[in-house]
């Protein structure tokens, strides 16, 4: 399935389907971003483009992706490939404290950077409550400085191109599910003589759970709510926005921010980073821990090394909570299929009939 910048503009940018991953941004001088909005400033005139090939929102054969990343079809149509689902947290208190939840992501990255397994990490920086920006960390301290979730679509993958330009390799990538998919598409793209190098330099990909990202207008909303107070941390519980400030905790019903949800996120099929080596999310009840989905062999090896080094501790995922996670993910997928059908545009999802039936027909594979 090939296409060019015109197709990208028509199918992705104009209908608001850009996820803001940032991967297309430095492929050429024509795609640029402002306030997390990607804009094509000039038609380059090519019929086929790398931008179209790597964009996570251009047509993607989901099951083919499974085969190319994991070498096999998936057994679990809802949660994707997984070797283990665990609760985990960073053992170092400063990492656990800085992390959004258990600090697993930061701990893994700091560990890999510290051991020299990777020379750089593609991350997302920014003070709580401010517009985030792509970051390329080269040591554990820089990685730790990026801890904490920023709830908008930072174009973090720009930093991957920067790493390639600077000859920094190998690198680790931390990203939202759309970003994970983008990196995977880049890694397997053929004929990308110029840019697949950037893909090849990726040692492993840590995916975040993500059910939506917000428009940057959210930050203005936050400012208005918090006034002069300094924002220390922003978080979401299942039903509330929680803003920790130096003047105390502010809470708003989550419905108040739904209007800020990025339109593209309403048509996202992957809330758990299905193509990552490991995927990390909240536990939905215990802030000190993360949900950790180990998906690939590489992810498994990384976790093993991190556990042996005593950087990460794990405990079993409570079996009674698994159906909750599964239902949440399934519902997200079903909502997306509906939304895409309603919009009537050809979907970026290329799913076999079998997959569709597996999802819609049964809720337990």
């Amino acid at each position: 399935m090939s296409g060019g910048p015109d197709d990208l503009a028509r199918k992705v940018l104009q209908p608001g389907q850009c996820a803001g991953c940032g991967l297309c941004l430095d492929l050429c001088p024509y795609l640029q971003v402002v306030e997390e909005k990607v804009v094509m400033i000039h038609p380059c005139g090519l019929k086929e483009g790398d931008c179209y090939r790597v964009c996570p929102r251009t047509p993607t054969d989901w099951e083919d992706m499974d085969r190319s990343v994991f070498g096999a079809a998936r057994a679990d149509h809802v949660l994707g490939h997984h070797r283990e689902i665990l609760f985990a947290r960073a053992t170092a208190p400063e990492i656990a404290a800085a992390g959004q939840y258990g600090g697993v992501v930061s701990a893994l990255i700091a560990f890999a950077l510290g051991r020299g397994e990777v020379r750089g990490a593609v991350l997302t920086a920014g003070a709580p409550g401010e517009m985030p920006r792509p970051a390329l960390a080269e040591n554990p301290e820089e990685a730790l400085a990026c801890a904490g979730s920023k709830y908008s679509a930072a174009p973090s993958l720009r930093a991957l191109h920067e790493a390639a330009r600077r000859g920094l390799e190998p690198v680790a990538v931390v990203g939202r599910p759309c970003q994970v998919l983008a990196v995977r598409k880049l890694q397997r793209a053929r004929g990308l003589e110029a840019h697949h190098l950037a893909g090849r330099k990726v040692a492993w990909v840590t995916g975040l759970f993500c059910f939506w990202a917000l428009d940057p207008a959210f930050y203005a909303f936050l400012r208005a709510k918090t006034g002069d107070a300094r924002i220390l941390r922003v978080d979401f519980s299942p039903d509330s926005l929680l803003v920790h400030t130096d003047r105390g905790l502010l809470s708003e019903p989550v419905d108040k921010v739904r209007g800020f949800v990025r339109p593209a996120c309403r048509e996202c099929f992957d809330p758990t980073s299905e193509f990552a080596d490991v995927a990390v999310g909240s536990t939905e009840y215990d802030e000190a821990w993360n949900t950790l989905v180990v998906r690939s062999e590489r992810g498994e090896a990384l976790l093993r090394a991190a556990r042996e080094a005593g950087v990460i501790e794990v405990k079993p995922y409570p079996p009674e909570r698994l159906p909750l996670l599964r239902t949440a993910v399934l519902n997200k997928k079903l909502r997306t299929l509906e939304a895409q059908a309603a919009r009537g545009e050809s979907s970026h999802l290329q799913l076999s009939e079998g997959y569709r039936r597996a999802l819609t027909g049964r809720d337990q594979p």
Partner: protein
Amino acid sequence: MSILGVRLDEPGRSVLLTGNEAVARGALEAGIGYASSYPGSPSAEVLGVLAELAGERGFYAEWSVNEKVALEGAAAASFAGLRAICVMKADGLNVALDTLTALSESGTKAGLVVVVSDDPGGHSSVKEEDSRYLGKVAHLVILEPADPQEARDMTVAAFGLSEQLRAPVMLRCVTRVCHAGGNVVLGALPPGPAGRPHFGRQERYITFVAFHGLQEQRLAQARAIGENWPFNAYLGPPEPEILVITAGPGFLYAREAVEVLGLGDRVGILKLGMSWPLPEKFLLRHLKSASKVLFVEEVEPFHEENVGYLVACHLEEVHPLAIYGKKSRHVAGPQGPGLGEIDVDAVIRALAALAGVPHETRSSDYGREARQLVKKMPDRELGFCAGCPHRASFWALKTAIALDGREAVVLGDIGCYTLGLTRSGYFLMQTVHAMGSGVGIADGLGKLGRFGFDQPVIALVGDSTFYHAAVPALINARYNRSRFLLVVLDNETTAMTGHQPHPGMGVTALGEKVPALSVEEVAGALGVPVTVHDPYDVRGTVEVVYRLLRQDGVRVLVLRRTCALVSARERKPRVYVDPERCVGDACGCHRFCSRVFGCPASIWDAARGRAKVDEAVCNGCGVCATLCPQGAIVVEEVG
């Protein structure tokens, strides 16, 4: 010969001078005390030369902020008894016209010569104005030299005439006089401006409608002088069948055409050195004998109309007489009658038709041959020079406008940056009129919000143009609460006309160092917020423009970076493409540097399939290196 010839104190010696240099020489010989100009092609070199000689010859020279100010300064010198010359291009005459029409009514004292250069064909102008019409409106005597010798001679004569009439005299030169080179026999140089300037308490120079009659009297006096003036001349048989009436370089074309066609015994040439007022008796004398009259002049049918009127008034004397020229479509350059320049061929065609002699000005194969040649000719578009800061500015503007996402309106005017309307400026510029007019138009658009107009408005102006004509519009905008972004493309010189100084530069025409008056000082004093940025930092510029676009009110952004042609004289890093890093057509940029960004130094090495920097053309700005998505362009400081 150039400046050496202009300053040479050897009367009678013949030297090679351009028309512009010859005018300057004439002014020296006339003993001027004051010379002023705003730079404009094709006459920019007149003051350029005079400024260089001002010191040694003891007169004052100035690059003024605009032509009106230049003229007023020259008038002051005249009132105080110093001969003065004021030089401008046709467009500048429009700016100075208000003062000029008044001066001819108020009268002047010491000789005041206004040199106006017309640019038929618009080689370096946006319009091809025939300034003779405005000279006539101003009730001025208009002299028209045909070559450099006449340019010198008429300049000298013009000062005398101006003093005799006590009014300014206009010297109209066209490009082919200004830029042509020819032998000029020099006259004597006076020791310097005579006398100490003085403005007597009893002297009055008042513009008042009652003095209109005086203007007409002066013209009548000039007409009488013209009847026997040596520059109004007749050449040919005593009773020609065809009379050619011509002025300026048209005279040279006509003379050559008559010679080529061998019509010396049938055709006479009447050359008008004074195009206004017309020497009526002299004209009628020669019109009487002819049965056909052909007008050869650039651009408009000025003589044709005015002599035509004279003929109408004296029909009985001149009958029968048929009139040919632009209206009859006999005299036409390649673009048609009354458009662009004419040449010898145009005159040959017209004369051959009138005389009924067969003549082919070109071989019958000419068209085919020309087309064959043209096929081989590379298409060369007008564009910014290599390293031009404007290219970086326009790319940043284009980017910021796209990021902003609203339909921004981009208004411009006259300067190098006018090229912003071409591919070189990514077709951004939407209006081009006169000096500073983009600001006035922005001011107007910026007040249409009350009708629901919500597009962002950007006015672009050069630094020299800012001082020339943008300031009143800016005052108007700030006071009347308009909303737009004024971007001053400040390359720290008047680049288009040859790097003349302006008030932002801290140096005068005489080379004196003075405190500069920066754009930000001027705009800041008006209470308009000013941001200054370096356009070579394209990313930063995009951010600044984007941010400013979202602000309200009138705001000014100065994009300051010295013209690359100036800076490359001092520092020129070597810029080259690393063939290992450039991935050629495998890159998604689709040849950004050579094809899109469009620096003339960025070329495509077809054999290697890689981008390349033509180091002979490159001015070393390094902007391409900051924009190449592969980081494949290397900037290396040298020496």
